């Protein structure tokens, strides 16, 4: 398995500000994923972060709004920029460990509320 530490666990932010979410994994992984879970909904993939290259964003998500860093094989950050109340969601970091037959491991999430 993989142990994923994500912080902050929750935050309340003002409109127009930015929040950076950190994700630390206990072992080196190639691919890290950032998901958004809006209230009452399922998970939506925001982007895939590979070390040493720019993140790959899914349709509907752009780098200016959700810049991602991946400085090494155990760490990534997601920034939610210029926040609005519509950004209130749970943001989840995930890693892939295909080698052990369990596709995705998730952090405990960051619950973001934007006022």
């Amino acid at each position, binding site marked *: 398995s993989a142990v994923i530490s994500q912080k902050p666990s929750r935050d309340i932010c003002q409109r127009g500000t930015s929040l950076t979410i950190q994700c630390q994994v206990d072992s080196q992984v190639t691919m890290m994923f950032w998901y958004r879970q809006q209230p009452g909904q399922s998970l939506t993939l925001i982007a895939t972060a590979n070390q040493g290259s720019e993140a790959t964003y899914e349709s509907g998500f752009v780098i200016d709004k959700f810049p991602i860093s991946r400085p090494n094989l155990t760490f990534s950050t997601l920034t939610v920029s210029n926040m609005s109340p519509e950004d209130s969601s749970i943001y*989840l970091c995930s890693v892939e460990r295909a080698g052990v037959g369990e*596709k*995705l491991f998730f952090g*405990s999430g960051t619950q973001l509320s934007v006022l």
Partner: protein
Amino acid sequence: AQSVTQLDSQVPVFEEAPVELRCNYSSSVSVYLFWYVQYPNQGLQLLLKYLSGSTLVESINGFEAEFNKSQTSFHLRKPSVHISDTAEYFCAHDNYGQNFVFGPGTRLSVLP
């Protein structure tokens, strides 16, 4: 486009009753199938998975799911639920690494 359908958004059951959470997927090729569970105020945890081999897979806490290729289903079942099983359950499939798709989730509420 690939998709995962969970027809029941909420399933209330009494403790010790059986439960089935339905999942159907659309894919023109073989896939990996997963059930994830999200307990209140926690992240997602893998409950069980089907990769290949036996179509019936089991978890350590009594849940099982059966892969049915002809019906493109992967329903989750438990013969007797506990209060502690109250959670959100997500079905997901992975098209051999092409994309990982989650269903909308089913909220299981176990009543005393």
